[in-house]
């Protein structure tokens, strides 16, 4: 029952601010606003506006609408919305921000619709709105005992003006938010129903595959396609260029290989065979890079480079010269590909008048902009429909595959689906950059941290966040950043920069705590207490109390400090995407290999919309983080990646994943923050720290299994 206790919010909601006129509404299904429709029988269809990449927003975002609408979840059907910038804002999957930034507008969507339904009932009964209440999709008038279903008044409600002010629920009254609801696509997924971009088909559709240069720094010189054109099922071979002279795209157009050869034909296998048979000559236009060059260049930056001093507190040089102890370490990570399980693909049907695009993309709006510019079509003649995505991890922020589909469709004048092979996908670029960072810490006689320096570099940028912890906790602090240029394209990869820097920083703090002779959790908490009582600087971009909160929670839940024979423990904590995560790894040795027996994880992401699905995200981030820290590496020789499929590029597998993960959410009622990324960054630090406990050796270079003596230093299993 909903009455009182909520709060009023002024309603200035640009997107979807006009009610849909009755004449535009399909029979028996009344659109109340851009987010929802109600049928006569009470069925509610809620549109899920944001791209679904496995972060489960297709379930959690509609849950928020349904909550404020005050319907039962069983009445709800969810539909994926296509790109519609007039109706929705920020239709993007990235930065773990869908729920955080959608929170208000989704609640408003539900609450305004509820308000309009009540108004319709009030008009019908001639009662004041204030006397009516709602529950499970019905409107009640307690005084007269009358009630009516939403379906019965939906038609009337759809004709009303959207109210300017609306009552939102008191979170204490939530009935859907905070309860676990199954993935709305779950039953389709387990039955193999078509959901993904690769599953999309349209009458007359052809299949296209691309051939990109074999190395970064090369481009197309000449092509002999005569034999291929004669192959069965092959209809065309075309050259496309996604970056013609003078074209400047959006940030989503990061792409090392805008000029490509495309083979077009009937079935995937026919096109794949033709692609392999193409005879192409390539030419070198810029230096062909090697992984050793990257390593050497980054090391030179660290040793001798002058970077931008992005944050300077006090005087670190003076503090270091008076230090009782100095700890310093350098951490490195390689380039890694995203390797979404579903390789890149997209459908396009381009005619002289319009372009219809369908597929998996995290940035549909940017794709529309680029396609509209490249094809010279007005934006409203370019449509982008969203499929479910077989993973994103940042790769699908860069929509070159969608642009390619459009250009190929235009060239061959037919609907086409572009399909990347795994090899295309892994060698095409836009990788997580290679990084290197050096930390230095100074302790005084009392083992108090008196100075901290961080100097970072990486391909196309430094991983360091200058105002993050431990900035603010120490009087003398310096953050220095450099960047290295490369012709290898890099971009966002799940928890950009954090995915590396968190583990490095948290492994380093463990070393500092050890040098100080302090418990690693207590050492971190001391720093947070400093930041709470007497912070240094006023640009620290974290809340030390919430940070300390997750550490204390994981300490208590894991019984930190308890000795368990054969179990080695490491701790880590990090803040990113507006959320706080602390983790404890319990490492054991089995068959002479390290195995994570259990991960304990505490998360503060504010209100948790869908708890079981949230746990799933956290578990996934942990497995992903362990996997890439242990095994992930794409190495380069003469500009070409040396790994191109899963026989040579190792992803974490079932036997290598933690046996158990237990997660605890902080219950604080704060509006929700990011969850798709924050559990990943700290885990590599907790793992390295547990490893150091087991072996006495620190792991400085990812992937850990690539460290030459990694396997020698595993202690014999008991």
């Amino acid at each position, binding site marked *: 029952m909903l009455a009182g206790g909520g709060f009023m919010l002024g309603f200035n909601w640009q997107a979807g601010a006009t009610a849909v006129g009755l004449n535009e509404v399909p029979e028996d299904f009344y659109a109340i606003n851009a987010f929802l429709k109600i049928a006569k029988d009470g069925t509610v269809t809620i549109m899920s506006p944001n791209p679904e990449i496995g972060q489960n927003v297709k379930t959690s975002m509609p849950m928020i609408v349904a909550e404020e609408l005050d319907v039962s979840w069983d009445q709800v059907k969810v539909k994926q919305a296509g790109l519609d910038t007039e109706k929705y804002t920020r239709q993007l999957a990235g930065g773990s921000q869908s729920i955080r930034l959608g929170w208000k507008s989704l609640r408003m969507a539900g609450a305004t619709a509820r308000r309009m339904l009540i108004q319709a009932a009030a008009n019908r009964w001639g009662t004041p709105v204030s006397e009516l209440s709602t529950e499970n999709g019905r409107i009640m008038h307690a005084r007269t005992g009358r009630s009516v279903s939403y379906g019965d008044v939906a038609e009337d409600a759809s004709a009303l003006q959207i109210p300017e002010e609306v009552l939102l629920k008191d979170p204490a009254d939530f009935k859907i938010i905070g309860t*676990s609801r199954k993935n709305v696509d779950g039953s389709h997924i*387990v039955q*193999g129903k078509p959901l993904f971009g*690769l599953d999309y088909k349209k009458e007359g559709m052809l299949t296209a595959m691309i051939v990109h240069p074999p190395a970064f720094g090369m481009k197309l010189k000449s092509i002999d396609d005569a034999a291929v054109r004669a192959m069965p099922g092959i209809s065309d071979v075309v050259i496309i260029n996604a970056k013609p002279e003078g074209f400047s795209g959006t940030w989503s157009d990061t792409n090392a290989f805008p000029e490509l050869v495309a083979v077009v034909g009937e*079935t995937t296998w026919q096109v794949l065979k033709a692609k392999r048979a193409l005879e192409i000559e390539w030419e070198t236009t810029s230096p062909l890079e090697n992984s050793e060059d990257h390593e050497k260049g980054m090391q030179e930056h660290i040793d001798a480079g002058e970077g931008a001093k992005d944050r300077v507190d006090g005087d670190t040089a003076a503090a270091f010269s008076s230090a009782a102890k100095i700890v310093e370490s350098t951490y490195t990570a390689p380039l890694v590909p995203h390797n979404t399980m579903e390789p890149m693909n997209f459908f396009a049907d381009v005619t002289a008048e319009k372009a219809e695009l369908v597929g998996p993309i995290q940035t549909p709006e940017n794709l529309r902009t680029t396609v509209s510019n490249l094809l010279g079509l007005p934006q409203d003649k370019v449509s982008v429909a969203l499929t479910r995505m*077989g993973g994103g991890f940042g790769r699908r922020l860069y929509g070159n595959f969608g642009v390619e589909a459009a250009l190929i469709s235009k060239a061959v004048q037919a609907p086409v689906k572009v399909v990347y092979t795994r090899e295309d996908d892994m060698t095409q670029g836009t990788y997580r950059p290679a990084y290197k960072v050096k930390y230095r810490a100074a302790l005084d006689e009392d083992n108090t941290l008196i100075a901290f320096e961080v100097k970072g570099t990486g391909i196309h940028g430094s991983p360091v966040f200058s105002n993050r912890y431990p900035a603010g906790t120490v009087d003398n602090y310096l953050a220095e950043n450099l960047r290295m240029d490369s012709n290898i394209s890099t971009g966002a990869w799940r928890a950009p920069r954090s995915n590396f820097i968190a583990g490095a920083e948290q492994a380093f703090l463990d070393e500092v705590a050890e040098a100080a002779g302090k418990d690693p959790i207590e050492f971190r908490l001391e720093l947070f207490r400093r930041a709470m009582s007497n912070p240094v600087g006023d640009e620290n971009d974290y809340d030390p109390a919430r940070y300390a909160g997750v550490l204390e929670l994981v300490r208590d839940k894991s019984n930190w400090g308890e000795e368990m024979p054969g179990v080695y423990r490491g701790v880590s904590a990090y803040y990113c995407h507006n959320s706080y995560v602390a983790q404890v790894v319990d490492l054991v040795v089995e068959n002479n290999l390290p195995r994570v027996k259990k991960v304990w994880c505490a998360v503060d992401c504010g209100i948790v919309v869908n708890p079981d699905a949230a746990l799933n995200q956290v578990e*996934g981030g942990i497995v992903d983080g362990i996997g890439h820290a242990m095994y992930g590496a794409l190495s380069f020789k003469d500009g070409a990646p040396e790994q191109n499929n*899963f026989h040579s590029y190792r992803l974490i597998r079932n036997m290598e994943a933690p046996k158990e993960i237990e997660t605890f959410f902080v219950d604080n009622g704060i509006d929700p923050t990011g969850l798709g990324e924050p559990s990943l960054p700290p885990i590599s630090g907790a793992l390295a720290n547990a490893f150091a406990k087991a072996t006495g050796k620190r792991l400085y270079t990812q992937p850990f299994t690539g460290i030459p003596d990694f396997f020698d230093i595993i202690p014999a299993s008991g």
Partner: protein
Amino acid sequence: MANYTLRINGELRQVDADPDTPMLWVLRDHINLVGTKFGCGVGQCGACTIHLGDVAVRSCSVPVSSVGDQQVTTIEGLSSDGSHPLQQAWIEHDVPQCGYCQAGQIMNAAALLKQNPDPSDSDIEQGMNGNICRCGTYVRIRAAIKTAAETSR
């Protein structure tokens, strides 16, 4: 091109395809059964797992010409309505994230349970090691297999 009569999910299906066409593409392109997924094409990820008889195979690495009259089962044929204990357990544990690998995981698990109806934890880990889940749902996959093994008993 050659003509093949295949026994797929209990039905006879005619296909015209090159003999070397992997079953993965025969299913997806020729027969329009797209539940079987393409992940690597080289037998390394398990996304394309189907059954030949009772055995789980990687359909990307099985040419259509080698299938003969063996019974082919795909995720669409595991049950007619999603009622297979593994499918039910997958829902109960809300296993999928992106969901892309899950049909292959379920098909592999189904063959595993046929061979070994009461698998230990390490049987499950080892038996499922050929199926990659990039989203990292391994802990739930194991739990769902345990549940399915119990409910099938």
